[in-house]
């Protein structure tokens, strides 16, 4: 009995000890591991249509981390906060860091105010902790390290472009130290932003560019915009309203304005795919919130534009002194992505169709390389049932040698022979080609006129100072009497406004139209302009080689080569010749 009791109590003690040890271990590990505190990641995208037809997209990625970089022992376990920036903060005792890279200039008058303003080029301003003794040295090292992190030439920031503003740049986070000795501000207006800067910026995000809103950040579309700005802002913030604990906040922002004409080909219809050539399939799994806001303040009843897919979520916010309404898409909810499991927001404007012109034309050069090419002229007849003849005049400079036997005129895929062709071929350096044709354009069709040409090599003095710009070919002229819906007034003496009386009107049923196509820019092969002297020398050398070898063979004959006697013998022969004695 006593042994049983003893063994039982031993077991109980061992179990208790093990449990206590485990708890202690777990607590210790937890204490060590989360000596960093909690971290949180949020992402959002705001899309705001601008009055000029352009569209403004603003990304913000915010990581908040409850930790203290300034503590004695280094922080070692990074989760959402990027390690490179954490190490920068701790090594250089940075209190606040704001860096932005911008391409383009923000047009405030056309676009309003941006959410995060930034100057063109690179801008960096940093508040250091008051424990830093040598601020200038630290600033220099910091700029070099940031230059490596962002692949930008921030190493050009030195004392010649750094200032210490006294009042303009107060700390944006918490901090009671406002001695401006610890503030440094520098800009590099000449800095160009490109994919090499975007890639390391994207790497700092927790999900990278693989999930969430960051999949939209593709450089080929982002840099094809009127304005592009990416920034990183690091500051300490309060965790709660009493500010008992501080956390570090990292905000990465990207503002981009897409141009109506460059990105949307003039049609006022924007979608995620059109802007970024991607659609969204999921939120970032590490994000606590992932939202898209579309500014619909100017469209309360949906009369200007419509947003699809429709969303019931609305939110209002006061930003930049204005209360604005936003449609909200929550990417953390699976129903946002619908049945196709991808989200492509579409904003379409309701517009009326412009009256299409009855006759218009385009012209372009086809082919590749600098030897040959083809001129294509397209003439559009948009009348639904009437066909009318047009006179096409082409004046092509002599250095593009047209081959008129390659002239083809096709309408609707079939050959359309012109009823009148007047062709005057060019004479080198005297006159250009002249081609005039009378072509009947069938109704509602496109007529294509193609002709092949060969590019000439000109004398080096005949090139313009910028020869690789190319040579211009003047516009084609298309003259025609277009059938008119309204009866024209043939009486030219009647009182009329000036704008209607320029072209004389001979008949009532048609009016005169002259359409000019685009001019063409054609590259010609160029010789090397630095070489005239060299070329003359080299070519004359080759001719001289020919001349020399033939001259040798023509004027010389074969002789047996006698070895020439040595120097002593030659002198002796000379003396002997003088004496009159036969030589050796």
């Amino acid at each position, binding site marked *: 009995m006593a042994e049983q009791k003893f063994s039982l109590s031993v077991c109980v003690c061992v179990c208790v000890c093990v449990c206590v040890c485990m708890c202690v271990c777990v607590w210790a590990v937890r204490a060590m591991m989360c000596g960093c505190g909690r971290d949180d990641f949020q992402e959002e995208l705001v899309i705001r249509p601008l009055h000029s037809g352009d569209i403004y997209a603003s990304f913000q990625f915010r990581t908040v981390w409850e930790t203290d970089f300034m503590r004695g022992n280094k922080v070692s376990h990074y989760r959402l906060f990027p390690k490179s920036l954490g190490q920068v903060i701790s090594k250089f005792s940075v209190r606040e860091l704001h860096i932005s890279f911008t391409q383009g200039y923000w047009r405030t008058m056309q676009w309003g105010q941006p959410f995060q303003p930034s100057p063109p080029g690179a801008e960096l301003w940093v508040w250091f902790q008051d424990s830093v003794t040598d601020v200038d040295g630290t600033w220099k090292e910091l700029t070099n390290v940031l230059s490596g992190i962002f692949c930008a030439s921030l190493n050009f920031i030195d004392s010649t472009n750094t200032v210490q503003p006294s009042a303009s740049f107060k700390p944006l986070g918490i901090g009671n130290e406002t001695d401006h000795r610890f503030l440094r501000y520098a800009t590099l207006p000449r800095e160009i932003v490109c994919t090499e800067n975007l890639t390391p910026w994207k790497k700092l995000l927790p999900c990278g560019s693989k999930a969430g809103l960051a999949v939209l950040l593709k450089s080929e579309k982002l840099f094809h915009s009127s304005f592009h700005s990416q920034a990183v802002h690091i500051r300490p913030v309060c965790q709660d309203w009493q500010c008992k604990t501080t956390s570090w906040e990292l905000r990465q922002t990207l503002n981009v304005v897409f141009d109506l004409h460059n990105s949307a080909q003039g049609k006022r219809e924007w979608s995620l795919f059109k802007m970024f050539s991607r659609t969204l399939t999921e939120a970032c799994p590490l994000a606590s919130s992932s939202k898209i806001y579309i500014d619909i303040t100017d469209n309360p009843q949906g009369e200007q534009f419509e947003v699809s897919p429709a969303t019931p979520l609305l939110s209002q916010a006061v930003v930049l002194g204005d209360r604005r309404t936003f449609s909200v898409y929550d990417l953390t909810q699976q129903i946002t992505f619908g049945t196709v499991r991808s989200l492509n927001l579409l904003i379409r404007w309701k517009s009326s169709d412009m009256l299409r012109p009855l006759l218009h034309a385009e012209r372009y050069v086809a082919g590749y390389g600098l030897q040959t090419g083809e001129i294509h002229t397209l003439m559009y007849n948009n009348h639904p049932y009437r066909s009318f003849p047009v006179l096409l005049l082409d004046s092509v400079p002599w250095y593009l040698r047209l081959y008129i036997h390659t002239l083809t005129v096709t309408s609707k895929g079939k050959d359309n022979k012109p009823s009148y062709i007047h062709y005057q071929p060019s004479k080198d350096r005297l006159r250009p080609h002249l081609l005039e044709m009378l072509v009947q354009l069938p109704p509602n069709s496109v007529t294509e006129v193609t002709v092949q040409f060969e590019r000439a090599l000109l004398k080096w003095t005949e090139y313009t100072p910028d020869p690789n710009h190319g040579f211009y070919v003047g516009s084609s002229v298309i003259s025609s009497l277009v059938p008119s819906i309204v009866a024209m007034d043939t009486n030219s003496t009647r009182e009329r406004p000036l704008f209607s009386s320029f072209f004389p009107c001979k008949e009532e049923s048609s009016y005169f139209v002259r359409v000019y196509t685009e001019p063409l820019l054609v590259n010609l092969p160029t010789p*090397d302009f630095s070489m005239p002297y060299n070329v003359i020398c080299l070519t004359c050398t080759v001719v001289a080689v020919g001349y020399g070898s033939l001259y040798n063979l023509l004027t010389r004959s074969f002789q047996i080569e006698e070895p020439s006697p040595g120097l002593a013998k030659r002198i002796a022969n000379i003396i002997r010749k003088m004496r009159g004695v036969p030589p050796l």
Partner: protein
Amino acid sequence: MAAPLTLLVILSVTIRAVLYRSSLAEVISERVEVVSPLTAWKRVVEGLALLDLGVSPYSGDVFHETPLIIYLFHFVVDYAEITFMLADVITAVALYMAVMDYNKQVFRKQKYALEADRYPLDCLELIRSPKEMYYIPLKVAMFYLLNPFTILSCVAKSTCGLNNAVIALFILTTIKGNVLLSAIFLSLATYQSIYPLTLCAPALLYLMQRQFIPVNFRRVSFWWFIAQYAFMYLGSLFVIVGLSFFLLGSWDYVPSVYGFILSVPDLTPNIGLFWYFFAEMFEHFRLFFLCVFQINVFFYTIPLSIKLKEHPVFLIFMQLAVISIFKSYPTVGDIALYMAFLPVWSHLHRFLRNIFLVSCVLLACSALFPVLWHLWIYAGSANSNFYYAITLLFNVAQILLVSDYFYAFLRREHHLSYGLYLKRKDGSEATLVLK
């Protein structure tokens, strides 16, 4: 020997026909090494199209062929491929027959010289035997028909093939001794492009040799023969020029064809020396250098005729080579014509000094031409200097080839007069130098 020749002709026609039907024909007819502004088929078609439109082909600057080409292709434009293949065959057969006749004469002369004991005893190994000379005509035809340059030129339908046919017929009639036909074909060749005019000197020398007229300025017979030949030549030239005038009723073709050849206004790159030189020329010196370069082609006629007056056929070869290298718009078709003669001088191979270097350079340059053209014109990663450099190298190689054969020929003649194994005064083996 007719059977192997027929076989050769059939083979070459097959190769050309196969290439005509393939997609390579389009590519080859655009290549600047094979066609020039003077010989391109595209321009012939353009000229005929202009004629159909009612515009004179010579009013523009695209068409630079003579009116006889218009006459010819007005009727056979649908059979153009057959025409060019036929021209190649005519050239090859003409060269075959000419070389066969020439070899017979060479052998006969050699026999007389041997009987007259004119050769030193130790140069018997330089004497040519019928066995080695038997296959030379076939080799000549083969060198012409199966030469890649000729095949390219034919597939591109370059009118250089027609010019070569006329020159080959001229050579044939000269070697056969027919003075009238020789003059007619020479006038036709000169009419097509001016440069074959230099071939009148070897033709005269050969015909005078054949008719046993001594080549001596003081003899009346010499001048009388020259006058006869000149009369026949000018007469046929007059007829041809008159025919050309009546085609279009104007003299427009003279500046368009001959003015074009002589004044080189079109600087399209080719394998010659003119284009880049005149593209980079200072305007002030343009006329001077134009004259220098054109005189350069005609300049070697008289010195070469004096040196080679006993060997007019070698003189023809030299003249053809000089024309092909130094003319204003050379193409590979011109090169193919003088290269066809190389088997005739195959007995000189032991005296050739640079043949390995020359053949390597020619092969390398032929391969590099399209590469550097592509890099300049299409890839944009090279500039015109690259193509120009290969042009220079190619022409230097050709000059070396021609002068090497000239050296070998002169050396063999020297050995035939003075003996093959020459000794110095002290009895050791001698080296021959040109002094």
